[in-house]
């Protein structure tokens, strides 16, 4: 596998994730999409790291940071999802349209 192939693979994953973010109505499903996007970035970085990097530890560390941040982000998003659910008894993004000018 070439570097291009890996990057294109990452891009495919990223866009599938993007599709999930844009198309899904369930807030948790949107979060799934975001996780896919983040993972696509990880693939990208490790691919660059594998083929190009002079210091392979750096790429791995970036990915570890991404994983850590993703976990933190998921915690916050999920807690917000819970409050949304408490207020509206649903986690449908289409219900989130009360704020408007």
């Amino acid at each position, binding site marked *: *596998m070439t570097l*291009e192939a890996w*990057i*294109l*693979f990452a891009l495919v*994953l990223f*866009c*599938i*994730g*993007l*599709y*999930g973010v*844009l*198309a*899904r109505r*369930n807030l*948790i*499903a949107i*979060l*799934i*999409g975001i*996780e*896919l996007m983040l*993972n696509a970035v*990880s*693939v990208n970085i*490790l691919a660059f790291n*594998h*083929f*190009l*990097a*002079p*210091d*392979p*530890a750096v*790429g791995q*560390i970036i*990915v*570890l*940071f991404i*994983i*850590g941040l*993703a*976990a*933190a*982000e*998921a*915690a*916050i998003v*999920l*807690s*917000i*999802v*819970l409050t949304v*659910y*408490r207020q509206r008894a*649903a*986690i*449908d993004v*289409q219900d989130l349209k009360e704020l408007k000018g």
Partner: protein
Amino acid sequence: MIAAGLVMLISVAGAVVAVSVKNIVHAIFGLGIALGGLALAFLLLSTPFVAAMQVLIYIGGITIAMIFAVMLSSTGKHEPGEGARRRVLAGIVSIVFFIAMAWVVVGSDFGPLMELAPEDMESAWSVQAIGRALLNDFNVAFELLSVVLLVAIVGAISIASRHDEGEDPAINEEGGA
């Protein structure tokens, strides 16, 4: 080569399931499959430590948390389905973005960069190297990450906390109406 193809196939298939099935639990399963596939991919990219972390934190942590959230917020009703219009629009946007980026990636020449690639540096791939880097160049980020995790946990608790004492029932009723 074949292994890589297979891994990619598994990941993409899992991802497609994750974003398309109606049942949210199934979608999380799809995500789990995709993440597992990616863990294998990381192995192929010669980063076993990251692959292990992926399994531990992502599959073991984040997806489980999602399942908990689903259980806590289950409406008991059927999941809301997406209309065709939404899907088509989302698909178009994703494809446009993909084409734009793929065009750039395919168009760029990685040859010169490859030439600069170093000889095999086995030692640099080791867990020790990661540890060393974390305590040198990345120590600020590493400390900061621990703060981020603290904030996230405290924040999640704070956001999700209810007030059972009923301090201002008026506002609660109004808000919860």
